[in-house]
């Protein structure tokens, strides 16, 4: 059984780092990379061996519903691969980047706690346990956002903590109501029991969860914490937050709860579409007006989450495929874009697009990979973002949601506009930049190149033979809705 190790390894690494690290961060780096590498191998193994099956791990030998269970199915394995893949590249990027700050070893300890929290949220089959792991990840995230120790970073972390606490309170309230109604915390049991509970209660709890997890996913109007937090954090953490945290704590939790526990009620699917559309359009306009590169990327994350939510809201098999594919694609290209922004910030000492210039001669890897990421996020062929957005648009038309298809098209157009603006000022500006504060290390370049290659390679997942082995099992878990009960409980 892989799942316990998915949680134990990063947790152990976090403690070991605090124990054995001195002033230098060498051991912290080695431990973190070994931990995340092993996590990625385990996640990949889990992903390619799980298929359509579901494996349960019951802690301490107790049986459901008395124990906390971990659930390994295609969806959780898929999410684990994304989290640990991005974590590995993020660590590669961090090695030299994070040395500009004091006590870098602390960074690695917090990083491991962040991964522990995310892996825990994904692996658990217990809703209170999900809340606990979520809080572990969030505490680490608050600290990491403030890691730079500047005023704006503390402010961002404070805002994040306040709004994060509100959402956590809402989620805890929802968990409490569910427990009161069903007398269990195991998600599969809750799903089974809810079928006998008054639907009003279910809808109340679902609305509270949507607000709570909507805030974690930064869906509008619960998004306001994200632009500050994601732009103030160190670049590799921004990539973790935008690339995977909002998906693990937000989107994944929404999928699991709304599809597998509540059975995707129609009213919530409509809400997903409405909120997703608002997020796509409003966040795109906000991104368009940004001159801070990382802030632009942060608003873009809200918009892209909107695409995912739109797909989830349309709710057909094709739409879910688009949403799932976009979760993966967004993790890849948004992390890459944050690495690019981090590299430029490290080299030039600014995030202001107006102070940047022509970097293609002096920073070819950063410029080249940023172009690939831009084309991916803007949805241009043959990059991965093209296919996931295309699928979502086709699904919207197929489901007769023409207006939503048009919104997705307008959102794509706006995405192209603000990312080409970022390219024009940030990488292809008039001023030839020749002097740099710091050079870009091999680790940073490698992280960027790996993700740039993935922006192209992951397009292949759409080929039917490959899709059936990779994305389709994930879609099946989601479309199976409360079939999750049978898969976990065996009844």
């Amino acid at each position, binding site marked *: 059984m892989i799942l316990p190790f998915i949680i134990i390894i990063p947790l152990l690494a976090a403690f070991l780092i605090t124990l054995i690290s001195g002033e230098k961060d060498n051991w912290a780096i080695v431990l973190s990379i070994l931990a995340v590498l092993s996590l990625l191998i385990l996640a990949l193994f889990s992903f390619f061996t799980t298929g359509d099956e579901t494996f349960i791990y019951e802690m301490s030998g107790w049986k459901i519903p008395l124990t906390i269970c971990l659930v390994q199915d295609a969806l959780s394995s898929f999410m684990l691969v994304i989290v640990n893949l991005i974590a590995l590249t993020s660590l590669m990027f961090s090695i030299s980047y994070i040395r500009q700050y004091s006590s870098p070893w602390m960074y690695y300890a917090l990083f491991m706690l962040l991964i522990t929290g995310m892996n825990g949220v994904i692996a658990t089959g217990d809703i209170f346990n999900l809340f606990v792991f979520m809080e572990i990840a969030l505490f680490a995230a608050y600290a990491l956002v403030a890691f730079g120790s500047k005023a704006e970073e503390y402010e961002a972390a404070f805002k994040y903590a306040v709004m994060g606490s509100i959402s956590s309170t809402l989620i805890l309230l929802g968990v409490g109501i569910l427990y009161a109604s069903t007398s269990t915390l195991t998600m599969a049991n809750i799903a089974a029991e809810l079928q006998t509970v008054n639907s009003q209660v279910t809808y109340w709890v679902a609305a*509270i969860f949507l607000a709570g997890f909507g805030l974690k996913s930064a869906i509008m*109007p619960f998004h306001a914490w994200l632009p500050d937090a994601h732009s103030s954090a160190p670049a590799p953490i921004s990539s973790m937050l935008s690339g995977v945290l909002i998906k693990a704590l937000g989107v994944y939790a929404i999928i699991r709860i709304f599809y597998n526990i509540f059975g995707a009620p129609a009213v919530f699917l409509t809400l997903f579409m409405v909120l997703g559309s608002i997020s796509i359009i409003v966040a795109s*306009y906000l991104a368009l007006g940004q001159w801070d590169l990382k802030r632009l990327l942060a608003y873009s994350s809200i918009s892209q989450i909107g695409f995912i939510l739109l797909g989830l809201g349309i709710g057909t098999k094709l739409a879910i495929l688009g949403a799932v594919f976009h979760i993966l694609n967004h993790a890849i290209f948004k992390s890459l874009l944050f690495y690019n922004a981090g590299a430029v910030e490290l080299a030039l000492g600014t995030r202001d697009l107006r102070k940047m210039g022509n970097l293609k001669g002096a920073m070819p890897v950063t410029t080249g990979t940023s172009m690939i990421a831009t084309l991916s996020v803007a949805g241009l062929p043959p990059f991965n973002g093209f296919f996931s957005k295309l699928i979502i*648009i*086709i699904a919207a038309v197929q489901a007769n949601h023409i207006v939503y298809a048009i919104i997705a098209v307008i959102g794509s157009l706006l995405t192209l506009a603000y990312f080409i603006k970022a390219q024009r000022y940030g990488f292809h500006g008039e001023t030839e930049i020749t002097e740099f504060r710091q050079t870009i290390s091999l680790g940073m370049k490698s992280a960027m190149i790996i993700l740039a290659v993935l922006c192209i390679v992951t397009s292949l997942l759409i080929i039917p033979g490959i899709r059936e082995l990779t994305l389709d099992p994930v879609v099946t878990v989601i479309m199976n809705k409360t079939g999750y009960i049978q898969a976990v409980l065996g009844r």
Partner: protein
Amino acid sequence: MAINQLSLLVLVPLIIAVLNLFLPVILRKILAALGLVWLLILNYQLFINPVAEIVIQGVAVLAVDKLALVILTFIQILAVIILVFSLKGVSPKIQKPYYVLYPLTLAFCNGAVLSVQALSLLIFWGLSGIALYLFNLLGDEKTTPETAKKTFIIVGGSDVFLILGLVLIWFLMPHNGGALWNLKIGLSGELAYTAFFSLLIAAFAKGGGFPLHSWVPDYSKDAPVEAVAFLPASLDKLLGIYLFVRIVWSLFALNFGIHLFLMTIGALTIIFAVMMAMIQHNGRKLLGFHAVSQVGYMILGIGSGSIIALIGGLFHLINNTIYKSNLFLALGSVEKKTGTNELEELGGLGGKMPLTFGFALVGALAISGIPPFNGFFSKWMIYQGILDLAKGVAPGYQVWLLVCLILAVFGSALTLASFMKFIHAIFLGRRPAKWDNISRAPLNQWLATGILAALCVIFGLWAIHLPITKLILPVIGEFGFSVPQMLGYYNPILVVLLFGTTLILGLIIYWGVRKVRLDAIYLGGMDALEHFRVLGTEFYKEIRDMKPLKAIYNGAEKKYFDIYDISGRCSFAITRLFRAIHNGQLHLYNLWIVLGMLILLWVVL
């Protein structure tokens, strides 16, 4: 997937591009030249032995019909000619990426034309837009980054409308499985109209049709001149109008109202763009506006619904790519010698660069619609088509069609006026002393412009026998239409003979009775200083300052009529509105959370 001519037309340039990533510049040139000549031969073989389609997993992805073959042919011809021009003269700074992007672009354009399946069209079409953007970034003007941004937002942005249009078509014709073209979808209902206009946006953005044309003049000025001749003047025009033909003649069954709408757009494109071209002081921008204006003729002809005008429109597409790339390359030769494309700085170069002058003159006369050059014949057919169409409609519509026709004819006259300025400003008049040591363009450059000029003549003199009979009429036949009877009579050989006779008579009179004294130029009894020379840019100053044109020109120069700038201003106004409610205040954000949750509760209960 079978390897045949169709797949090779995509694979060969793709492989050349990949190999060119690693080769030294000289080998890149050789490989590109050999590869492109081979593609030309492959293309010729398609005429003789049309090959089967390429099928992937049971779905036909690439295929060639008569229309695609015509477009492909001119893509290969122009690619070879422009490559000849590029062999000597491309800035050393950009040579390496240039010889990667060039075959890459060719592969994408070939792929787009050969695509008969929505997904493959989307991919190749999108990739050709990326290539256009990357070529633009090779320019070294100060305004290049801004132009590249504008170009990609318009052209790349139009791709999402192509997606929407094709997805809607697939929705309307679900049993077709994404296969394209001969669908003849009736224009009824919102979905069909949305699909039609979405595809129209994609075609106009690529081809440079009004109001999505504004990237073309800017691109013309700021990209490397070879890239301008290659893409907006040639390949993108071919692609954009190719899609337009498909939309109008095979994808949809249009009603007369839509035909009238398209003709109006065409006429407006002609007149607006040519009016802007007249007042330009930059040679490349002037040509850029003419590139747009000429698209107007194509839209007018192809969009009219008349078979004669369709033939004229297709012929005009071919002609335009020939003389427009000729003109850009001729200007490019001048630019490479002088280092400028500002008309004010040029002048009197005809004597120093006689071949370039001669070829540019042919191009200028062709685009102005002067017989016997090719541009005359295609415009003449479009006019005839409109007249033919007018015979069968109600009097009110006849007036409308007549207005469109008059605008088109007037546009042609203004084109001539504009090119008088262009030719005078560069090649005639008094030459500034700084250009006294200018030498002729290198062999490869005048060879390229010379071939294009020759094609202008050949396609003018033997218009019916060569391009129309051999290339265009088979397309018309494949569309299921019979060849219509021409309204008027025009014999290009007779016209040439008449022109020739007149010219010879003129020369006889000139040489026989001339009695002139050649002297230096004086002004107020003193040698005229250089800055008193007559600049071509002064030609239409009066028109520029004429009421109410002055206000319109001022507005146009401030980009008030540019859809890109209008959209930009509207977008930033919306952005400001949203930013006003994102003031960074935590209590406000908390209020949103509470309100958001209350709304959710209200909705679900």
